[in-house]
């Protein structure tokens, strides 16, 4: 009987797919992987701003009347971009002022935590509280609330606002991301918007240009959110946003009366170190606190200049 078993199993194994298909898929995924971060950052900010505009619209059906709302106060919100496996793939710390303007700081996810041996992005797996505590410790600013958003929704979000205006210094064509765009001011939606955010290769200043791009895109996107496209946006985002219990989102949202004025920055990091043979950035709470204080304290809104 053993020979029969052997030949039966061999026949089963013989059914396997062509290894070249798998190789091609592996290669494709490898090229796609790093894009998540940027997309997440953009999605998050937009989702939070959009949710804010939308919720009052949706809430009219409920018994809460606007007259009962407290006047809005400034609130710090940690926005968490999650991938399909519910990992925190992008982190954005945002302060929303009573007048509806927002100040947004991208937190590089490769910063090591001080409270554990992990990087900050893996703390989310231990629960949102673990993550928010670490961010409070790192930046010295209180985290009033958090919102988690699935990043895969991003394509639909871009389309829902009818495209986002950006400006390129020169025409760009690059096969990895599929970018194929002319120079100058233009409106991006759907796949082109994604490619614009995804592109990593062929950029003059590498990561720096990439960050500038997503910040320019954010500003453009925030400017497109209106009361008219908000309901459509709400439908897109509604199912995939999760916030902490006890957040009075109505009071939060009442500050937004039109397009969101937004300024963006990236948290400076400490030196590159290794922990347990993993590369990452050393946390630098002193520098981080100073930066966050300055950024949340005021300053100019992001200019909508051209990017590389």
């Amino acid at each position, binding site marked *: 009987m053993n020979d029969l*078993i052997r030949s039966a199993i061999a026949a089963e194994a013989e059914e396997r*797919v062509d290894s070249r298909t798998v190789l091609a898929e592996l290669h494709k995924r490898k090229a796609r992987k790093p894009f998540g971060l940027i997309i997440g950052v953009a999605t998050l900010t937009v989702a939070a701003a959009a949710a804010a505009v939308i919720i009052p619209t949706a809430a009219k059906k409920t018994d809460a009347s606007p007259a009962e709302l407290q006047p809005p106060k400034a609130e710090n919100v940690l926005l968490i971009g999650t991938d399909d496996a519910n990992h925190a793939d992008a982190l954005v710390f945002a302060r929303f002022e009573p007048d509806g303007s927002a100040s947004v700081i991208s937190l590089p996810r490769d910063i090591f935590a001080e409270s554990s041996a992990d990087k900050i992005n893996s703390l989310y797996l231990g629960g949102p509280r673990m993550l928010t505590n670490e961010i409070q410790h790192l930046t010295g600013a209180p985290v009033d609330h958090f919102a988690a958003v699935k990043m895969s929704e991003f394509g639909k979000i871009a389309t829902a606002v009818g495209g986002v205006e950006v400006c390129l210094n020169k025409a760009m064509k690059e096969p990895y991301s599929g970018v194929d765009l002319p120079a100058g001011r233009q409106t991006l939606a759907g796949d082109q918007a994604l490619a614009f955010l995804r592109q990593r290769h062929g950029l003059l200043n590498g990561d720096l240009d990439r960050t500038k791009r997503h910040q320019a895109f954010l500003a453009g996107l925030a400017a497109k959110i209106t009361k008219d496209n908000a309901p459509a946006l709400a439908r897109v985002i509604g199912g995939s946003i999760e916030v902490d219990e006890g957040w009075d989102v109505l009071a939060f949202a009442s500050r937004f009366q039109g397009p969101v004025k937004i300024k963006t920055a990236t948290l400076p990091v400490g030196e590159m170190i290794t922990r347990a043979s993993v590369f990452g950035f050393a946390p630098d709470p002193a520098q981080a606190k100073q930066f966050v204080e300055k950024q949340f304290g005021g300053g100019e809104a992001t200019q909508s200049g051209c990017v590389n």
Partner: protein
Amino acid sequence: MGFDQFVAERLDRLLGYATAITCDKHLAQDIVQNVLMRAQNKWERIGAMDAPYLYVKRMVTNDYLSWRHRKAAREIAVERSELAKHVPSMADPADAHAEREAMRARIAVLPRKQRAALVMRFYEDCSDAEIAQVLGCAESTVRSQLSRALQTLRAHELARSATLGVHS
């Protein structure tokens, strides 16, 4: 060994193994792809091991045995057991092909862990110790898994011969 070299040398064999334990080439492809993506991220560690293939095979096996694929495995088992019901009565015992297909169907409905042990023994020619390492259990457990699988297959084989005997 570098990751690319590992993939070039072992991918086809890994796909064969995964297909044999899952009895579903698409599920096998998904699992192998996901595992290799994960393995690549920590290749510095895996590549330095004595037996990287054994470790990656363990990742593939664990992935299949995890709760995530329980539903898929059940559906495949149901489909195959339907198939198995029909094969014996139609098959000519002298037909080696039919006999092999009947055995294939019976292996496909074994419990997942038993099948994994069986495939490692009869397809990968692994020792008890190696199987124990991949399944993360004691060698005595491996032996009992294998003997239970063989017992089931033998019982079916006897039942089948008897049925065919009556009808022929």
